[in-house]
């Protein structure tokens, strides 16, 4: 199935953007401004739809004219490109969008042709599928792990690296005990948040070179 690689679904949606005769609203511009204002870290709406690995929203103004002798042509509408890579199945993902991040969905797709709103999640799903373009070829480097599995592994990696450093050269019995503690802490640690603030790091640690 071209849209899928392993457990990962690659959704590509092209939603035509509304044109307007009124000069004070250009849907594409308003949509751009809205997208520019959205947070991109753990407070992103897509962090909430936590099965999302990577997602993008792009206002595509037109096709590209590559130069003579190619023919110059133009789209009659602008399109919103929504590309997302997520765990699991399409219906569940679209339902999560409708239910968990209605503000984003409304704010974005209200600018698009034929958007039915979220009163009926099934209508929304049908609408999105009408805008779906079949992926011709999908490449996924890691296609068998969920977002949570990846984040947890990264958390473990970071903790183990610090553990190795702190216990280098220590007597075996002490290391063994500390290792037991590490395992317990890792098992009990809350799931790391997707989208990019590792709560153990401070802003200063993020830029050590500025000291």
């Amino acid at each position: 199935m071209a849209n899928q690689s392993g457990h990962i679904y690659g959704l590509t949606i092209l939603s035509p953007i509304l044109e307007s005769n009124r000069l004070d609203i250009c849907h594409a511009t308003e949509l751009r401004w809205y997208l520019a204002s959205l947070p991109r870290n753990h407070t992103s709406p897509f962090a909430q739809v936590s099965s999302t690995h990577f997602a993008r929203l792009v206002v595509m103004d037109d096709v590209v004219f590559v130069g003579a002798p190619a023919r110059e042509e133009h789209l009659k509408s602008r399109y919103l490109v929504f590309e997302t890579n997520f765990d699991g199945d399409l219906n569940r993902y679209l339902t999560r969008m409708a239910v968990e991040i209605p503000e984003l969905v409304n704010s974005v797709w209200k600018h698009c042709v034929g958007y039915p709103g979220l009163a009926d999640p099934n209508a929304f799903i049908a609408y999105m599928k009408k805008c779906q373009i079949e992926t011709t070829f999908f490449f996924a480097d890691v296609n068998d792990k969920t977002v949570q599995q990846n984040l947890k592994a990264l958390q473990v990696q970071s903790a183990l690296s610090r553990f190795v450093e702190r216990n280098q050269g220590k007597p075996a019995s002490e290391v063994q005990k500390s290792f037991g503690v590490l395992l317990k802490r890792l098992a009990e640690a809350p799931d790391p948040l997707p989208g990019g603030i590792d709560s153990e790091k401070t802003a200063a640690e993020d830029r050590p070179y500025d000291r």
Partner: protein
Amino acid sequence: MTNINGKAYAMNAITPMKSWKTPVLRGFFFILGAFPFLQASLKNLSFIHFARWVIIRHDQFPHLSARQPLEDLHYDYLIFLSNFNGTWNQYIDAFSAVLSSGLNAIWRWSEKFPGSVPVTPFKSYIAQVQFETDYYYNAYPRAATNDVKAALRLQSALNNFAKTSQTLSPAEFETAYLEFIAQVQADLGSTGMAPVGT
């Protein structure tokens, strides 16, 4: 607008294709999909999280309302959407250096594609057909795909070691721990911020 989130870069490119060439490209992608070993070089480069090619025929742009004008296009279009690690220049340099025949097989059907070698006209073409991302989300911005894979390998090894680690004698633990560290030693790289884009 930004194409970058953490260590990932969101590239979007659209190129026109004469309609008769589209089935040829579909054929190539079909073969690529059917024979994973052909993707080996792509995997070995190890700097793409997810990438997709989407062919959209001239009459396939979604049309949802009578009031939306119908598109009247001559060309089919190939849309390329990539989530990769590294800078724009680094990415294209690497592809041009080691995957040029694969790139050519995909993009030679697009109008005015200059070939992927030499690299300067190739970069000009990409710059021309690339369009900017308005919003980009990355669930693990501090991790490149190498970091993710390293972490998964490490975690798997840890889970294995964890099964017996507390039941061994200290001497046995010492040996087993050393073996465990030797197993994961290439997977201990730190995660963090990416170098600035160039």
